[in-house]
């Protein structure tokens, strides 16, 4: 490979990739560097490319705003944090606890029928709204303050990202 590097090929490399050997094609890098260090024409070529690279490097790029960072942190995935431990015995205990909250008079005195069912259901639903039983698991969520757009964006893409890998 060392012998195959020509000034013409070095010129092609520099005109495409610039002056920095770190950006040159890996397989040709050492041969190109060897020629560059031994040839006055190559050195002149590189010197001009260094200046042009410096000019390109002037293209502006600012740091991310604090607002962007905080929006992203607000939209980060949340771990599933069930209020109720996922054990059957305790689930039973939880339901029993709900039952007793509705009807503290003991099961023997509990009225049968739809009224009873409605009582229990009403309390269960009312309580559930305060319980963050996370059904979304690790799916990314967005807090309300980040806006509808971000929520839609975060939740919309549940498919592979290939649709925009064109």
């Amino acid at each position, binding site marked *: 490979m060392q012998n195959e590097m020509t000034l013409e090929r070095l010129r092609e490399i520099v005109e495409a990739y610039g002056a920095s050997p770190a950006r040159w094609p890996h397989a040709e890098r050492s041969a190109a560097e060897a020629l560059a260090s031994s040839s006055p024409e190559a050195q002149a070529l590189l010197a001009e490319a260094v200046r042009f690279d410096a000019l390109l490097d*002037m293209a502006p*790029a*600012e740091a*991310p705003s604090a607002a962007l960072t905080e929006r992203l942190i607000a939209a*980060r995935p949340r*771990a599933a944090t069930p209020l109720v431990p996922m054990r059957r015995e305790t689930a039973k205990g939880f339901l029993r606890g709900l039952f007793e909250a509705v009807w503290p008079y003991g099961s023997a005195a509990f009225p049968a029928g739809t009224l009873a069912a409605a009582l229990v259901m009403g309390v269960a639903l009312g309580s559930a709204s305060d319980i963050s039983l996370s059904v979304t698991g*690790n799916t*990314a969520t967005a807090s309300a303050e980040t806006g509808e757009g971000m929520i839609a964006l975060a*939740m919309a893409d549940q498919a*592979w990202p290939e649709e925009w890998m064109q």
Partner: protein
Amino acid sequence: MADRRLGPLRGAGANRRPRIGLTPPHPVCSGTGETRGKIRLDKPSDDELVAAVASGDEAACRALMDRHLTRMLALARRMLGNHADAEEVAQEVFLRVWTHAERWEPGKAQFGTWLHRVATNLCLDRLRRRRGTEDIDAIPEPASGEPGPDRQLEQRELAARVEAALQSLPERQRAAIVLSHYQGLGNIEAADILGISVEAVESLLSRARRQLRVALATEKDELLRSREISA
């Protein structure tokens, strides 16, 4: 061509408890290369951070952003030509990271390459949507006026002209030079991201630089002169 898929959907990963820095890194993958085969308590790999992100670790989210957000923003800035649009793309990139974190499989793909692909495609998509709403052949008006004695003003004007010249490039040439020159990616990685051959990358780069030289012919001399003055 490298497989771009992230791999089959994994389970919710409820049993996975990633601990940053304490999980042995996958032997193939690593965020930085130098962590391969080593357990680094002080510098977790990208894969470890992504796993921790999936479990809601805020510190991991911040670490991943510290590591990659500025670079993604810079990529988008050079592709799109303004900070506001660049922040929108950078935001979309990381929202996708958050969304896909639990499906990320170490070893299937390099996280950095994936990130670059996401950002590049979002930018190209945005540029295509811009087409038809403006004349993309018109070079954006750079800062006008003769360069004055104010050195900072000179530098800002030069910067604006370089940015304008970048914006005048066709999209694919711009993407090639952003990935290669500004992001410092190798030709193989750039080819993978753009979905083309390395020969095609080199061709795009040659044409891009040729066009930029024409667009910036006077600016080159100005920069040289300003550096000689300040030397």
